[in-house]
């Protein structure tokens, strides 16, 4: 993770009408130095990269493609270079979403997002309980997370560890494998539990890089 005494630098991919203040503040509290990636090369070279939760699936994906940042993210994920996706940003790592029919995601992980059933208040907005995966190596722990989402995954392929929450039925709260952390919730708004997750990701994923 860089030289002793230097702050880990985390590049953020801008995907549209950005509200990045909360997550950048959380990274600063974790001792990191967050910044907006200027272009795809900037994102590719960063020690840590984050795709934040902004906009609809189709518009966010179009913004990533326009800057070539999608390829940088795909490349990072295949190498296991520390990469995080949050909320709508997390969803772009999958193949498609009912939110934007016909739009292709990055397809780094197999799966398609579906809308919560209309019998529930949508969007899900607020705190929900997260159960960590059985994998002892996972960064996500049991606790309460803050969600703001209308679409979700209900299954994950092999090779990626899932954390789960209940909203009507079970859905994917987070998915992770070494170097890659995908959060449907907002870790930056999930109190000390979410702050701890960001800190562990910076430490452990950084150690692997």
């Amino acid at each position, binding site marked *: 993770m860089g030289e002793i005494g230097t702050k880990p630098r985390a590049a953020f991919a801008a995907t549209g009408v950005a509200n990045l203040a909360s997550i950048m503040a959380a990274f600063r509290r974790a001792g990191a130095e967050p910044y907006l990636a200027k272009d795809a090369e900037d994102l590719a070279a960063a020690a840590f990269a984050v795709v934040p939760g902004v906009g609809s699936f189709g518009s966010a994906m179009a913004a990533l493609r326009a800057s070539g940042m999608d390829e940088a993210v795909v490349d990072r994920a295949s190498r296991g270079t520390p990469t995080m996706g949050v909320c709508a940003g997390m969803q772009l790592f999958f193949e498609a979403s009912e939110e934007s029919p016909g739009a292709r995601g990055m397809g780094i992980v197999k799966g398609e997002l579906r809308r919560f059933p209309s019998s529930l208040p949508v969007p899900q907005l607020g705190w929900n309980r997260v159960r960590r995966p059985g994998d002892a190596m996972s960064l996500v722990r049991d606790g309460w997370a803050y969600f703001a989402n209308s679409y979700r995954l209900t299954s994950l392929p092999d090779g990626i560890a899932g954390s789960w929450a209940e909203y009507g039925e079970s859905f994917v709260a987070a998915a992770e494998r070494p170097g890659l952390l995908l959060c449907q919730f907002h870790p930056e708004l*999930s109190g000390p539990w979410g702050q701890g997750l960001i800190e562990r990701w910076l430490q452990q994923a950084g150690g692997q890089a």
Partner: protein
Amino acid sequence: MKSVGALRIIPCLDVDGGRVVKGVKFQNLADAGDPVELSVRYENEGADEIAFLDISATIEGRKTALESIRRVREAIGIPLLVGGGVRTLEDAARLLEAGADRVAVNSAGVRTPELLDELASRFGVQCVVLAVDARRTSGSSAIGAAPAWEVVVEAGRKATGLDAVRWAREGARRGAGEILLTSIDRDGTGSGYDLELLRAVTAASPVPVVASGGAANPSHFVDGARSGARALLAAGVFHRGELSIKSVKESLAAAGMEVRL
């Protein structure tokens, strides 16, 4: 019953000139502390969100508030709802840029209801909260003509004649993802939420309702939740240390309700 997540407890900071103030029925404001210190204390006590209402009336006051929002944002890791003086998309964008996660619209929504549609399409419904300040009318609803509660704007100074229940429903239809419902009759009185108002609005609104105005003891919060609120807001009792957020949540849990403890 299907799980729909935890009830939220939201301490509210009414901020004027960079300081938290608190009054009774929106009058006689007294200093109640520093917004950053209070926000951090409330997060540590288990607050699920912080509401920051900028009540300053001057341009200089608004600038100070924006700076306070930035400082609160740096300090806390829970959602920040900001309201007060939001009239345009640009006002909302400025608050979001400063660190708000959600924006509340009040008077401007009454003047220009389309603002709610525009905010929702630009920022998403999860970002838009309609603040409704309601006051009981002297007219009896049995007569038919007068609404039981009317919407009051401009910090409680101007009555609109608008039916609060209908306005909440219209606001949700236009794009508000949540209704922040304040009873002006109860604000600062410590006599509990206006449960009749709360039941009427939750029955009419397709989106969650935050109860506000009058909570002073744990049973008020329990009653508010039982009357349909998905989140419970209070200010003075928390600022003065008369109640801790943790004790309120423990009371809700003891009453069988799901809270984040």
